[in-house]
């Protein structure tokens, strides 16, 4: 649909970011080459431009980083909480100061719109460090015992969809509780983590407290399996999460897993339609749907299906797909060629299984990885697009007649991370929220995050919670047998 008002291009300048041609691993406060000299390239998903060459961590590097973290742990854990807090406050402030630079960097490396990195990712990253900084000297009041103790070295593996935000979710609580960290960013988005290393330098963080090891899955596996790692934190796919659970079986390593989802967004017939449409769009097209808690299954009450779909399609036709650095862009690039292939293949299966595919008229740029916002109707619960996590801008629409049916369909999933409820009736919100088996439920809103709020899944969406007071537990030793907590 042609827009009444044509937008002039409004690109954010990339001159604020200075990307070096190559980066090393960040171990013990220094950038170093990989022991075996291996490197890989990180590209901008919207242009396929090579941004930098990155050292690729191997087993020897993992060992070196864990040793550095172990050594640093002695002093870091012994610091008074108030001192650790000050380091974290410094980091939060430096992130705020460098927020524009980091937003541009993240958009370049990840492909998501600058609107999102600038207005969602970066403010939340700073907020997480700020929030956990304040816990560092108050841990004895957190409800985990009178003298809660850190675990030691935390091995953390994070995904590519929110590179810096996931780093913040992992590193902030780990440092606040006195642990030291070895973190492996995803192979397609290592840059912001390496820039974070520079922030640690600016903050004067002691050497070895934070170590960054870019690499592929094998680097992550080596980190998880390292015998001197005390705590494993992972965000990523359910399949890898299960592998990690097997790897740590029989060890004393504490584990938290934030895995996949197939969130149900339930719209009742009395919902405010325009608000619901905004929420549905936000739920599945935010970050190109590459969000574990995305509302990828729309459950709409049968009586308003036509009206809602009409509004939804009209709204989708106004979304602007293109240059992620343009401030008017709503839909950016898919993070990698591999992910684009996965989305494409699942969507083809959806068609093959008989679901009806719809996309707004949408021109895709010639280079880069792109996928138009896509809607499937005539979807049944048996369809693969209703069961598997697609992790892309693809919404499956199902219908229901009664609240019970909505709950049954929403819960008919191996996942249990998020859900949405749209209705004007308060008692219905509470009744349905009570029955949904999901860790985060947004009513009359969607995709809201805050450092004070625990986030995490039921069922195969993982163990444990991140954020809030609950997020501290993952990094503290179990309370004494006396049970003083």
């Amino acid at each position, binding site marked *: 649909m042609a827009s009444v008002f044509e937008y002039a291009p409004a690109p954010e300048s990339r001159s604020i970011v200075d990307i070096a041609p190559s980066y090393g691993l960040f171990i013990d406060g220094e950038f170093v080459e990989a022991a075996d000299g291996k490197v890989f390239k990180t590209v901008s998903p919207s242009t396929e431009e090579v941004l930098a060459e990155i050292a690729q961590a191997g087993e020897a590097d993992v060992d070196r980083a864990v040793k550095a973290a172990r050594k640093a742990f002695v002093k870091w854990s012994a610091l008074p909480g108030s001192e650790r807090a000050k380091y974290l406050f410094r980091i939060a402030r430096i992130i705020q100061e460098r927020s524009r630079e980091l937003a541009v960097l993240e958009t370049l490396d990840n492909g998501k719109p600058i609107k999102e990195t600038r207005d969602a990712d970066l403010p939340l990253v700073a907020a997480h460090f700020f929030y956990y900084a304040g816990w560092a000297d108050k841990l004895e009041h957190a409800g985990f015992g009178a003298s809660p103790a850190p675990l030691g070295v935390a091995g953390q593996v994070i995904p590519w969809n929110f590179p810096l935000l996931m780093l913040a979710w992992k590193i902030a609580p780990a440092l606040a509780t006195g642990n030291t960290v070895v973190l492996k960013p995803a192979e397609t988005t290592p840059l912001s983590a390496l820039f974070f290393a520079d922030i640690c330098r600016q903050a004067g963080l002691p050497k070895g407290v934070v170590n960054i090891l870019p690499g592929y899955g094998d680097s992550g596996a080596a980190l998880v399996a390292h015998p001197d790692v005390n705590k494993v934190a992972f965000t990523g796919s359910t399949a890898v999460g299960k592998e990690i*659970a*097997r790897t740590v079986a029989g060890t004393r390593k504490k584990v938290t897993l934030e895995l996949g989802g197939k969130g149900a967004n339930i719209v009742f017939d009395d919902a405010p339609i325009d608000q619901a449409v905004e929420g549905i769009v936000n739920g599945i097209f935010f970050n190109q749907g590459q969000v574990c808690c995305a509302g990828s299954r729309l459950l709409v009450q049968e009586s308003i299906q036509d009206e809602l779909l009409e509004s939804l399609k009209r709204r989708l036709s106004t979304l602007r797909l293109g240059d992620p650095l343009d401030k008017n862009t709503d839909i950016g690039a898919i993070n990698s060629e591999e992910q684009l292939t996965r989305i494409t293949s699942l969507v083809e299966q959806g068609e093959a299984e008989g679901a009806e595919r719809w996309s707004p008229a949408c021109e895709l740029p010639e280079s880069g990885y792109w996928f138009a916002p896509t809607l499937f109707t005539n979807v049944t619960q048996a369809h693969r697009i209703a069961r598997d996590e697609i992790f892309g801008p693809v919404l499956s629409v199902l219908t229901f007649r009664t609240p019970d049916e909505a709950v049954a369909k929403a819960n008919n999933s191996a996942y249990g991370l998020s859900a949405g409820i749209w209705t004007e009736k308060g008692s219905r919100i509470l009744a349905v*929220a009570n029955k949904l088996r999901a860790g*985060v439920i947004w009513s009359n809103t969607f995709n809201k995050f*805050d450092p004070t*709020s625990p986030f995490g899944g039921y069922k*195969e969406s993982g163990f444990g919670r991140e954020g809030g007071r609950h997020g501290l537990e993952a990094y503290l030793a179990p309370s004494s*047998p006396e*049970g003083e907590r």
Partner: protein
Amino acid sequence: MSTVDKNDKTERAERLSVFKTYKLYVGGKFPRSESGRVYEVTDSKSNWLANVPLSSRKDARDAVVAARKAFGGWSGATAYNRGQILYRIAEMLEGRREQYVREVADSEGLSKSKAAAQVDAAIDRWVWYAGWTDKIAQVVGGGNPVAGPFFNISSPEPTGVVAVLAPQESSFLGLVSVLAPVIATGNTAIVVASEKSPLPALSLGEVLATSDLPGGVVNVLSGRTAEIATPLAAHQDVNAIDLAGADEVLAKELEIAAADNLKRVLRPQPVDDWAATPGIDRMTAFLETKTVWHPTGSLGASGSSY
């Protein structure tokens, strides 16, 4: 001992006592093992005590079905109601105190007084957990002060069906210490009794059946721990497993099997003294945290926006 007691004893000696057939407790009923197998349970001096069911994989699966069926009702009951029922269980246990003292003394080779101390501690523990049902949500949940016009609250919910491998050495106090927290928080349970000393656990079934506890909320199996635990750890409809009664080798094996559907696993932890106050870890291990958001429609600069 008074003379009356002595007379009693003489009278009893002339009377052949009635043995008890120990049975499983599954879905509120007392079946024998589907397999028809039993094994011999002896006291610490190898004297025969009873033949108890040697549960099979099928018994384990039946117990899962019963526990799943009971989950909706039990988790949906009010915390106050669950507390009442747990307290009722403590009342029933108190009434059977002597029986448990005898069974614990026989099973664990303890003196009467030591066994009595274990039983008393176990009954007191039920009472302790009965009081937790309507407090745990306030302790581990709460409102989150988010930076935006939203109301947001986190509350704990039971994880679902929990397989509990009861500790091997503490046949009653240990059993109660691992079972009560699981059901206090609204989960349903399949308990695998201590392999060597299953009698107190099987007798507990009789108490549970007469305590207003809905059938299926607790299911008690006796037999070889490893044999029953393996299918439970691999079962796709079991949400969590407490490995208290597993040795190191078995625990690792079960943990690997449990990864298949990402069961919540409580690893075996050394417990020096089951009588010590346990803390809330055993409850939180089987709770999920649900966070619910809603806009508050806060007042903007231009006036009302709600």
